[in-house]
């Protein structure tokens, strides 16, 4: 039963925010080298200029601040972004199975990464792979939008089909290149296929942060339109929405955001599909309430899944996409069984 009263909703959002803050701190301690919470807090305070040196080693400070902190923040941003995008896409397409990867961006990102690894080499230094993944994501997204639009009009059912079709073709091309190419290349490309947060670094965090924030503002400004479109095309028009324009804004905005996220973290599945359903159960389907809940739950979920991913098979990193897919699938089965 969704939360009914506005006071209950505010309480939930505040609790989620606190939980998110706490999770960010707690999760910094986990990994192949465990760091106690007291030290983590000390290191963070020192780094933001509020504390003194403590009894931690330089190595610990390095791990917590330089490696884990950006990773936790990237995870939170990616989770928030994907969950929010999934919620919005499910509404505009009126399809509860829609998810951020539906627009073909993930296969495009893999294809871009394959091209760099096999042929182009590091053309832009450390940023080559993310950059190529983004260009690939953008390309395949434009292809999907191009195939789906007819007479300047984007229709949801055509978009879903075009997304699936283009994804298969682009993925086939990427797989063909991989199969015929250098076997070592497959390992570096696997990252985009399975998803991971290992690329996180402070110098790159501003990009997803700005994009997720912009995406949130865009989708919140369209929240009423999303409510109306969820009820149907006729309803949306009769409530005064230019449905073509709303759809175009949602599709292009979410595709761009997904493209940025995928280029940094690979194709992390199931977050965008599953979290909106969880959020709807908590706060209902009204988008002004749903989208913030989606973002917070997505961030929380991703932080803790990533903790699992980096502690489960230490010292190795489990690709986070494997964990999200496994948890997501099991969760859905549970939901189905409980409903029945």
């Amino acid at each position, binding site marked *: 039963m969704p939360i009914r009263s506005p006071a209950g909703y505010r309480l939930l959002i505040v609790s989620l925010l606190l939980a998110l803050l706490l999770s960010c701190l707690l999760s910094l301690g986990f990994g192949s080298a465990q760091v106690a919470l007291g030290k983590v807090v000390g290191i963070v305070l020192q780094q933001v200029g509020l504390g003194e040196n403590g009894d931690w080693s330089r190595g610990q400070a390095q791990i917590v601040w330089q490696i884990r902190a950006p990773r936790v923040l990237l995870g939170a941003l990616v989770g928030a972004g994907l969950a929010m995008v999934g919620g919005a896409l499910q509404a505009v397409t009126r399809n509860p199975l829609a998810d951020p990867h539906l627009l073909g961006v993930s296969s495009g990102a893999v294809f871009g990464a394959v091209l760099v690894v096999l042929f182009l080499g590091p053309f832009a230094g450390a940023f080559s792979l993310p950059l190529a993944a983004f260009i690939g994501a953008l390309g395949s997204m434009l292809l999907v939008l191009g195939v789906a639009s007819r007479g300047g009009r984007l229709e949801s059912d055509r978009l879903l089909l075009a997304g699936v079709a283009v994804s298969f073709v682009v993925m086939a091309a990427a797989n063909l290149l991989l199969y015929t190419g250098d076997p070592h290349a497959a390992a570096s490309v696997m990252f985009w296929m399975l998803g991971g947060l290992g690329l996180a670094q402070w110098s790159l965090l501003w990009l997803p942060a700005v994009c997720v924030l912009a995406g949130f503002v865009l989708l919140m400004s369209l929240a*009423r339109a999303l409510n109306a479109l969820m009820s*149907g095309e006729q309803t949306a028009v*009769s409530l005064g929405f230019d449905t073509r324009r709303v759809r175009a804004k949602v599709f292009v905005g979410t595709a761009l955001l997904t493209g940025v996220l995928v280029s940094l973290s690979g194709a992390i599945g199931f977050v965008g599909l599953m979290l909106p359903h969880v959020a709807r159960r908590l706060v209902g389907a009204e988008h002004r309430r749903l989208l913030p809940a989606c973002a917070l739950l997505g961030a929380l979920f991703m932080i803790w899944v990533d903790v699992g991913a980096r502690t489960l098979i230490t010292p190795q990193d489990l690709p986070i996409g494997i964990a999200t897919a496994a948890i997501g699938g099991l969760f859905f089965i549970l939901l189905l069984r409980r409903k029945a």
Partner: protein
Amino acid sequence: MSCPTLHIQGLHWSPHSGGQPLLEGIDLQIGAGEFVGLIGPNGSGKTSLLRCAYRFNRPSAGQVHLDGEDIWQRNPRWVAQRIAVMLQEFPEDFGLNVRDVVAMGRTPHLGWFEGDGEPSLIDDTLARLDLLPRALDAFVCLSGGEKQRVLLARALVQQPRLLILDEPTNHLDPRFQLALLQQLRNTGLSLLASFHDLNLAAAFCDRLYVIDAGRIVAHGTPEHVLTEQCLAEVFGVQALVDRHPLASHPRITWISPA
């Protein structure tokens, strides 16, 4: 005479540009506070015509004027501030509650980041339609009659001048059919509704338009329009038309072919 609320003149519409028109030369007028019914067989173009009236279908020729202004010279929001539509389109799987659905009616009057505004209007409307106790229930859990009342509430909080309804009495028990139509009459709004049940149309409408194969073939008061000859020509069924025993409007009795 003052300017009609809705005035459709010489309207043609086809689903694909340059294609065969499905609506041809439609002329239709609705005065202030008038209840106008649209009747015709399946596939005659009732729904298409209603969609033209609320700026969904763009006519290939002719005009649709609302309060003297061409609706295609205005944006969808302007139209939605003046025309509300009650459809058979429900938000099913997603779980909006009753109040959410009704509050959506305020949409055309609000800015992007504005709150719902005037909660009293929404609550009063819910109360007027006996929906207040169900305000926080999920829309999907309601009965068909309650869903229709919720959609009516949404249309009313939209505070329109004209309310358009596509088969509003479908799927409703007789009691709810009569209650809904009575509630509609009581709103005092200009109303345009399509009907399957001609007896309901006869009982509640001030005037009827008969549409057949995309053309208006008759219009006028129910007594004037609902003749045995017209029904035979348009619906292809023999009928006996007499006066309703308790009221002044005509009563139709279909005669099934032996």
